[in-house]
């Protein structure tokens, strides 16, 4: 546990990827395989289900620290993280347990799940008493399932690949499914991750998908595109779909559908099940699942709003009516495997050509071929991009014609750019604030925003809340806003403060829909602060009519 805690502190102390990579390599070079197996699991985002209910943890910690409940709550509000709060309040032990991570997880922590609260209360204090503060915080983060340390799966992959002298793609492929909930990694699993490559490895992968290749955001003025990207002819240009990124895997007569989080979602999309019969074996398609307008003519862009897809995902069972009202299609745009062979190291245009052939040869009803856009110049493409909103897409995708299919958000094998349209935006008023977590802990940094419900001059004019946002401000701005919130507080309800409305922000968001769950009658997607409108008085913030006009 100590060694893993030391790694955690090293990773937490730096923002440099190289320094993190070095820390990871150092750790894995000396860690016993069973500890390393769990370390990979947690660092790559694996999370066992919550082992102990939060309430039990709180009560136990409050009792051990001999504090009144309210003081525990005040402490938690200041720290912004439950595991850290408890580690700061419990009696301290300078020594620290020398038992390894694997032993702690398997012998001490996992057995806690499902135990009666009374039993947990007996077991935890002697365990906690064995840990120094960093190990204790880590242990608590593992118990609450909140372990996170600013390391991406990709970085872990690179560290292991460097250490084992393997291609990072190979390691990434082996890591697929490694962090599934319920998986208990063993020393043998770790050895498999870093083992030398074997000839039959490719054929043993069952229904596993490939790690997804992700796009970078393109945020430059169009005039600079020629200099940045070269001519449009070097690029494959498509619509950027607003759906669920998915891989469809067909092997050995079976079909699997995977979402970007490497979650198996085959059951959620019965429309795609016919592909088990129609797709040839040894094929992996990459594309986007979208709700498509029922009865749309072939070739028409009939994307339905993301909200409909979301509704489908929220349902436990998919009724006939829902399937009829909100059927899905797969807009296929890449071919990762063909005739059982990994095609990721072939150029984008070669994969596309083969995908087109495949689509021409086989009748794949629920699969559409994501169309290519033609443009003689970037200005021409920029003009086509202007239609995005009315077509229900998010903008354009630019894929280098020579790009290989990389792992995650890499650029070393060619690049995918997402060239999104500007978000919707309105000027809204900050009315409630709450302290944040993590980096924003103890600062009032999570805000609720409102717009006016009537035009200026109306007698009943009031502010109605419609969105919450916490990202988009610089640290400096956040500090200033925090100070203003403290000065203008009207009332405090638990952790939330209401303030005299004085602050106006331009809020950006990706989508907007009617909603019966919000007071304003409107729900927005991915709201964030674009800028602080210091120039705008509260009276001049937007009203509900502005939002309603954005509803298509």
């Amino acid at each position, binding site marked *: 546990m100590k060694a893993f805690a030391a790694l955690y502190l090293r990773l937490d102390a730096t923002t440099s990827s190289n320094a993190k990579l070095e820390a990871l390599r150092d750790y894995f070079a000396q860690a016993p395989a069973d500890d390393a197996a769990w370390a990979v699991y947690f660092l790559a985002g694996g999370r066992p289900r919550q082992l102990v209910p939060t309430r039990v943890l709180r009560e136990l910690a409050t009792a051990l620290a001999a504090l009144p409940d309210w003081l525990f709550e*005040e402490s938690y509000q200041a*720290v912004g993280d439950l595991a850290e709060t408890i580690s*700061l309040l419990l009696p301290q032990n300078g020594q620290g347990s020398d038992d390894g991570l694997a032993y702690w997880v398997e012998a001490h922590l996992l057995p806690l799940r499902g135990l009666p609260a009374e039993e947990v209360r007996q077991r935890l204090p002697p365990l906690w008493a064995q840990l120094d503060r960093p190990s204790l915080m880590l242990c608590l983060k593992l118990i609450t399932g909140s372990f996170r340390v600013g390391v991406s799966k990709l970085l872990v992959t690179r560290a292991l690949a460097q250490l084992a002298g393997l291609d990072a793609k190979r390691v990434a492929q082996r890591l697929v499914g490694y962090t599934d909930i319920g998986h208990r990694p063993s020393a043998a699993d770790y050895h498999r991750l870093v083992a030398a490559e074997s000839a039959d490895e490719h054929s043993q992968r069952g229904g596993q998908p490939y790690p997804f290749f992700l796009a970078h955001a393109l945020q430059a003025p169009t005039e600079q595109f020629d200099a940045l990207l070269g001519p449009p002819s070097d690029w494959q240009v498509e619509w950027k779909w607003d759906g669920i990124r998915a891989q469809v895997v067909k092997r050995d007569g079976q079909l699997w559908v995977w979402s970007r989080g490497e979650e198996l979602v085959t059951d959620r999309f019965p429309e795609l099940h016919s592909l088990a019969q129609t797709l040839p074996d040894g094929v992996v398609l990459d594309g986007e699942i979208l709700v498509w307008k029922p009865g749309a003519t072939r070739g028409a862009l009939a994307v339905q709003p993301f909200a409909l897809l979301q509704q489908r995902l929220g349902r436990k069972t998919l009724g006939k009516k829902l399937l009829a009202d909100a059927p899905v299609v797969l807009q296929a745009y890449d071919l990762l495997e063909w005739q059982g062979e990994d095609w990721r190291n072939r150029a984008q245009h070669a994969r596309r050509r083969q995908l087109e052939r495949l689509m021409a040869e086989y009748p794949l009803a629920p699969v559409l071929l994501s169309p290519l856009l033609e443009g003689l110049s970037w200005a021409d493409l920029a003009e086509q991009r202007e239609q995005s909103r009315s077509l229900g897409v998010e903008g354009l995708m630019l894929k280098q014609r020579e790009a290989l299919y990389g792992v995650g958000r890499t650029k070393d094998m060619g690049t995918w750019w997402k060239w999104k349209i500007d978000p919707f935006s309105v000027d809204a008023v900050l009315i409630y604030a709450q302290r944040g977590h993590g980096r924003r802990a103890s*600062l009032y940094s999570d805000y609720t925003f409102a717009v006016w419900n009537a035009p200026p001059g109306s007698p009943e004019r009031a502010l109605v809340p419609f969105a919450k946002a916490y990202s988009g401000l610089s640290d400096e701005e956040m500090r200033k806003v*925090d100070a203003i919130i403290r000065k203008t507080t009207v009332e405090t309800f638990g952790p939330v403060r209401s303030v005299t409305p004085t602050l106006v922000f331009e809020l950006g968001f990706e989508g907007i829909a009617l909603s019966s769950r919000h007071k304003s009658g409107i729900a927005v997607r991915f709201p964030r602060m674009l800028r602080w409108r210091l120039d705008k008085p509260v009276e001049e913030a937007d009203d509900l009519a502005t939002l309603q006009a954005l509803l298509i």
Partner: protein
Amino acid sequence: MDLVIARPEGLYCPPGDFYIDPWRPVDRAIITHGHGDHARTGNRHYLTAASGEGILRSRLGQSIDLQTLAYGERIRHHGVTLSLHPAGHVLGSAQVRLEHQGQVWVASGDYKVEPDGTCAAFEPVACHTFITESTFGLPIYRWPSQAEVFAGINAWWRANRDQGKASVLFCYAFGKAQRILHGLDASIGPILVHGAVEPLNRVYREAGVYLPETRYAGDIPRNDPLLRQALVLAPPSAGGSSWMRRFGDYSDAFASGWMLLRGTRRRRGVDRGFVLSDHADWPGLLWAIGQTGAQRVMVTHGSVNVLVRYLNEQGLDARAFATEYGDEDESTPAGAEA
């Protein structure tokens, strides 16, 4: 009668007709210590602890009208017996003891209960009413031992030196910087300081506090290899300024009690955070309050509401005093001097 009340100008003693650390100009001001939020310019007469004279004059001007008292020395003013006692916060810091008609009040200013070798150690003073600060008034604040913190700073410096990197440690120029200098292992390498730190070092040295040899960082040429072995002390305001460029590839750290929390540490954006404070931690506050034997406690700047409520639950008569020291409301780790 209350010996201290809160007025718009600051904490005021009605029978003595003077103020303690006023934030608006007054006729007579007792200054508990030289930090900017406690020692302000524009007062007509000043009184402070003898060991704080050098600091106060260097900050407020050589010509201020200043009377000093040795710790424990008593004077009478308008029937109030007044004396100053060590607060252990920074050089010259004092608690103010007031006695009038059998009532004793002590105003702590800022204090730290653990001795650090750079200023007289905190001395509990028995009183009926104690005015306490509450900067770190939450039970999450418990300081690691100073030995542990200095071992951490020395190890960080050594590791950077071995990699050929300067170690830039941000800290407040008055108090914290000298405390760090006092505790460093000077055999590791040269110690450089920012221009804001050196004048205060001089005052400390003149007061007989041991500080290792320091050099003004601006005197070292840009490419001197010495820079890559050095520990550099600089105020937080130097971070991100062009002054930093001379150090090339460096590692940075920040020394403050707020560094105990992961969130504040990350927000600072430095490589390392060292938990070192001039203020009492939670156990320190409770210990100090207990030692005074006071039944009545007035709580100023910091976690005022928390400490007031907690002390009341412990059976004391605790109340809040609104002041303009540090931050009023709750801990705002962002810029507070700690």
